[in-house]
């Protein structure tokens, strides 16, 4: 059974729809990521699930429970906030015990369950500390333990890693993923960071202006983005505009390239930089291209290419060999396999 179902969930602020008829299902044990730029409605969606914001219309169901009008304290949902939101006047132990005390659990049970939760986030030794005596990463782990100890029906994470510095972020990210797998708890994470989304989510929901742009696995979103918005939000890409017909796309500059799928009515195609195969010379499979800029990135080298017709492409290929000696102005060959040319729907038109 689905852990959580959102049915045409909508939030209006005046005339403005912050979240617009959003429907979504989270499976048991699934890690779902809501991804989008600020103001896309992802946080409002999360807050409606938690019950902090009342839905204008639509329905939120947890298991077979309709919780749309349920106050937050009766929902049994774990929430972790960006700023940790620990209770500064309570010890780490009491922070974690808070939810169990509200549930009137016996003292002995509280002790064991808090100890177990703190063990999960490797903070067993910190039970007596006050939150302000701990680092940001430790505080966030306390917040995670506090949300998990009540055995919530679903765990909501509101940009939980963005207050941490880069190194710590990777650490807590991995820990979070391992913990979620271990407990098998349905989880929704909200973020604007595509790396975080790709690395954590079983499925990603890309949101834009209050609506779902596309839902899919990280691989699906990367390889088969439904719109230019999704393509530019997840990974990098070359966007070429022009006209498609059958299995051929012709750019505005007159460059015609074969495609694996039919591209009728397609006005924009995407080519990922790493899908372009560079070679020292042009041949039957490789169009001639002039190097405009070379950037050495260590394992990869990024090359900006200018094609005869005026199209520009950014290509990325493993460093080494002839590529290390390539210079701007040089003429090389660029091979674009037909399956690497991905037709994009008009802005916001295609949704899965």
């Amino acid at each position: 059974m689905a852990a959580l179902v959102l049915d045409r969930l909508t939030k209006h602020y005046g005339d403005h729809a912050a979240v617009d008829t959003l429907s979504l299902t989270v499976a048991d044990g699934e890690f779902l990521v809501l991804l989008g730029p600020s103001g896309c409605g992802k946080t409002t969606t999360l807050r409606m699930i938690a019950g902090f914001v009342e839905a204008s219309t639509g329905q939120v169901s947890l298991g077979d429970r309709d919780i749309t009008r349920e106050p937050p304290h009766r929902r049994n949902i774990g929430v972790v906030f960006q700023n940790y939101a620990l209770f500064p006047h309570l010890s780490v132990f009491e922070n974690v015990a808070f939810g169990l005390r509200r549930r009137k659990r016996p003292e002995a049970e509280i002790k064991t369950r808090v100890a177990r939760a703190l063990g999960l986030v490797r903070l067993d030794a910190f039970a007596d500390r006050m939150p302000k005596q701990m680092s940001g990463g430790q505080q966030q782990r306390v917040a995670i333990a506090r949300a998990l100890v009540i055995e919530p029906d679903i765990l909501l994470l509101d940009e939980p890693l963005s207050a941490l510095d880069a190194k710590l972020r990777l650490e807590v990210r991995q820990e979070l993923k391992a913990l979620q797998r271990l407990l098998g708890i349905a989880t929704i994470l909200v973020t604007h960071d595509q790396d975080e989304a790709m690395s954590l989510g079983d499925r990603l929901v890309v949101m834009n202006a209050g609506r779902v742009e596309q839902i899919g696995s990280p691989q699906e979103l990367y390889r088969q983005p439904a719109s230019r918005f999704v393509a530019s939000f997840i990974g990098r890409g070359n966007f070429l505009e022009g006209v498609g017909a059958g299995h051929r796309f012709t750019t505005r500059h007159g460059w015609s390239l074969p495609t694996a799928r039919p591209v009728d009515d397609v006005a924009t195609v995407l080519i990922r930089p790493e899908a372009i195969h560079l070679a020292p010379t042009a041949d039957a499979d490789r169009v001639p291209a002039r190097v405009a800029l070379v950037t050495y990135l260590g394992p990869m080298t990024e090359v900006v290419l200018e094609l005869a017709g005026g199209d520009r492409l950014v290509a990325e290929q493993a460093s080494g060999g002839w590529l290390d000696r390539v210079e701007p102005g040089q003429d090389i060959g660029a091979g674009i396999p037909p399956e690497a040319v991905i037709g994009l729907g008009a802005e916001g038109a295609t949704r899965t």
Partner: protein
Amino acid sequence: MATGRAMAWRRAGAMAPASLLVLGFLVLPMLLMLRYSFNSFVPGKFMVEAVTVENYVKLAADPYYRHVLGLTLTVSISVTILTLIVGWPVAQFLARTQTRHKGLLLLAVVLPLFVGNAVRAAGWMVAFGREGLVNRLLQATGLIDVPLQIMFTPTAVIIGIVSVNLSYVVLTLSSVIEGIDRRAEEAALSLGATPFETWRLVTLPLALPGLLAAGVLSFILSMNAYATPVLLGGPSFQMMAPVVADQVLQRANWPFGASLGFVLMLVTLGLTAGANWLVGRRYGR
């Protein structure tokens, strides 16, 4: 970049005018008053230089003054509790409102302070009289048949002082509540705390230092209230500040007035420090 020492000098320089003012116009006169309180009062000769504790002994021995101090404390504590209870919801609303007219609302809170205490008390006199607004209103709605005696009762004085202190308390509390992390309250709700439990277990403890500050402010203002008890309490209702003024201005008994003033100050200070210590111990700040 200024060095640490230069910075310290600059800071000292900036604080000097205020420090000198306090020293010259507050500390020195108070030391003088302290000295006066050990002088003796001889009728006909007024103040006579001496070193005696007779004023303090008289104060402690005379049940009248003990009564005045007790009444002042009762009124002040009642006023403090009332202002905190009445002020909190207003302060919370002010702190949490999303309206664009917040500046206007803040002005409305401060507005009563634009009228002096004496003028405001005069207004209350009009409202509280036998034929006053309050009695007329109560009679018109049929709640009472015979006009209530409100003027010259502790109720009138307490309402009067509460109306003065409320502005200060609301302003202090709302800035404290504004500083409380709403996410912490939401976390409590998500963990199963009812809205009231959330308030009692999270909001209130986090607001405690501010609640204490607001309470102390209200308490000090009430302990030293003058115009309101004189005008609304009438001649038989005696609080400390008017009694001090009476000794000094009417009876020209500076030594006894000074000792009364010092006892008032010490009691206020002592209770404030005590409250501070209690809250600090209870919540380990």
